[in-house]
């Protein structure tokens, strides 16, 4: 009886998530010809991953994901904390919450598809686009704006677009966290003469550890799955000259045949990369959850 109720969900979830994932991990230890699995190959796919030319792509993509993660931690989660704190201060002493309007506005880009956000910013940042026009008009820049075509700046632009996209998330999670902190704690700090900056760092921040943990873990997972924005804004090769390549765009090229001049697939290499990414994500997530769990302050 109970089994019959669970069965439909389990069947769909098992067939389209658990089974392909298990097969992908298993398949990374075999040699492949096209989409056919051949012989057991031990760790040879993994060693190939670290040999040129793959090693250059791998380290580049991994490095970009790491920069992306720290960029998001500062520009999205750090700035988001500041916004949440400002909203919290505005509402202090007032009965009703005026923060709702700003929260809704800031969160709106987060419900849009990253494809739409990427396409919109690609048009705005293009040479001849409105950002170039505005910067030239303000005298901050001269001539054609090529930030997306320049390998020094392209990755930073994508990180900024991603932060614009998701800024509302830290604002919502931090304001929810701040509201759970008892008002008496802030009153006591105020009586001790703490300013609002001091209160944020010394009082609120330690009590926000669960929220910080949630956001850090979510940002870690999202960053290491980054694909859509890169694909739409810079193409699947992570242009210019692989400077915005990520682990998932590299995985996509290996798996679906857009890597190298001739564009052939290398399923063995793709699955090895997938397994590696799976390990990075699961171990990273577990470590972060434990790290923040230990630092949660109990009152």
């Amino acid at each position: 009886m109970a089994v019959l109720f669970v069965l439909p969900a389990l069947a769909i979830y098992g067939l389209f998530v658990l089974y392909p994932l298990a097969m992908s991990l298993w398949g990374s230890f075999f040699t492949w010809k096209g989409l056919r699995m051949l012989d057991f190959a031990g760790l040879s796919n993994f060693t190939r991953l670290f040999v040129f030319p793959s090693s250059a792509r791998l380290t580049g993509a991994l490095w970009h994901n790491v920069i992306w993660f720290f960029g998001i931690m500062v520009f999205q989660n750090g700035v988001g904390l500041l916004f949440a704190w400002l909203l919290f201060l505005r509402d202090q002493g007032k009965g009703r919450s005026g923060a709702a309007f700003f929260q809704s506005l800031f969160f709106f880009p987060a419900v849009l598809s990253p494809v739409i956000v990427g396409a919109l910013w690609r048009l705005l940042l293009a040479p001849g686009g409105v950002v170039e026009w505005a910067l030239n008009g303000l005298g901050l820049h001269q001539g054609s704006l090529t930030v997306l075509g320049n390998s020094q700046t392209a990755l930073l632009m994508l990180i900024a677009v991603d932060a614009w996209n998701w800024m509302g998330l830290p604002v919502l999670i931090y304001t929810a966290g701040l509201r759970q902190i008892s008002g008496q704690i802030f009153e006591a700090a105020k009586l001790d003469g703490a300013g609002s900056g001091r209160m944020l760092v010394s009082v609120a921040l330690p009590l926000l550890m669960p929220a910080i943990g949630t956001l850090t873990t979510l940002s870690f997972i999202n960053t290491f799955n980054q694909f859509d924005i890169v694909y739409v804004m810079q193409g699947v090769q992570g242009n210019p000259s692989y400077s915005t390549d990520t682990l998932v765009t590299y995985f996509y090229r290996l798996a679906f045949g857009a890597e190298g001049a001739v564009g052939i697939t290398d399923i063995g290499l793709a699955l090895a990369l997938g397994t590696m990414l799976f390990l990075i994500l699961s171990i990273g997530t577990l470590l972060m959850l434990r790290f923040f769990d230990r630092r949660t302050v109990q009152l």
Partner: protein
Amino acid sequence: MSALAIQRRLSRLPGSTVLVLWSAAVLLPLYILVVSCFKTTAEIYENRLGLPQSWSFDNFTNAWTRADLGQNFINSLIVTGGAVALTIVVSVLAAYPLSRYKLGWNGIMLGLFLSGIMLPIRLASVELFTLMRNLGLLDSLTGLILVYSAIRIPFAVFIFANFMRVLPSELDEAAHMDGAGETRILFQIILPMVKPAVSIVAIFTAIAVWNDFFFPLIFIFDDRYKTVPLAISVFVGQFRTDWGLVFASLAISMAPILIMYCLLARQIREGVGAGGGMK
């Protein structure tokens, strides 16, 4: 206004300025998007920020018919509606015994479902592609509905189980004594009491499915079955010089989400603030 009140307002000024500046950073690109939809490409270059000279809908009709966004739009609606309905039905069914019966194996089963919330399913896309090909589900909206449901089931089971667990057990005990069947108890007694869970699951599943790009990219090749995000990714390259048309297609693809967001902003804010799972 007393001197104290004025002083209080002044001390808030820098903070308010920061908030207003970011509001502008969010609104300005969206404003440019909206006004550009009504301009020709030449007018977009000449008149950057102003309102269009005439409110022409040419870009919209071009996007809808010439670029065939209409078909993509219908496909996205079918896939989103189908995935939301299927996810809710099977997850409600599964969550009921797992959260309210003592079975001995509900802990393990719930754990198995929960592990799926974090699984990076994109990495399984090669094997998933082979599976879909063998099942004849490539180039198929049904295939997309099944994959999206499979991905969203863990989150849905988690939410429904959490809501159902706290309902008093007298509810179904009384119904059992009246001789009601399990299906009737679930759909007539339990389900109406977890309506907020249904709306949370529906909202976040709809957003995730409507916005997804990765799976149509690898499973859909025929133009007739492309969804909106996939079509948009093609437009951006294909109509690169026709900015008005690209802006209009972006606006069309945002419209359903914008309408839903205006109606449900409070539920979405609370759902996310409570740590509800986006993505």
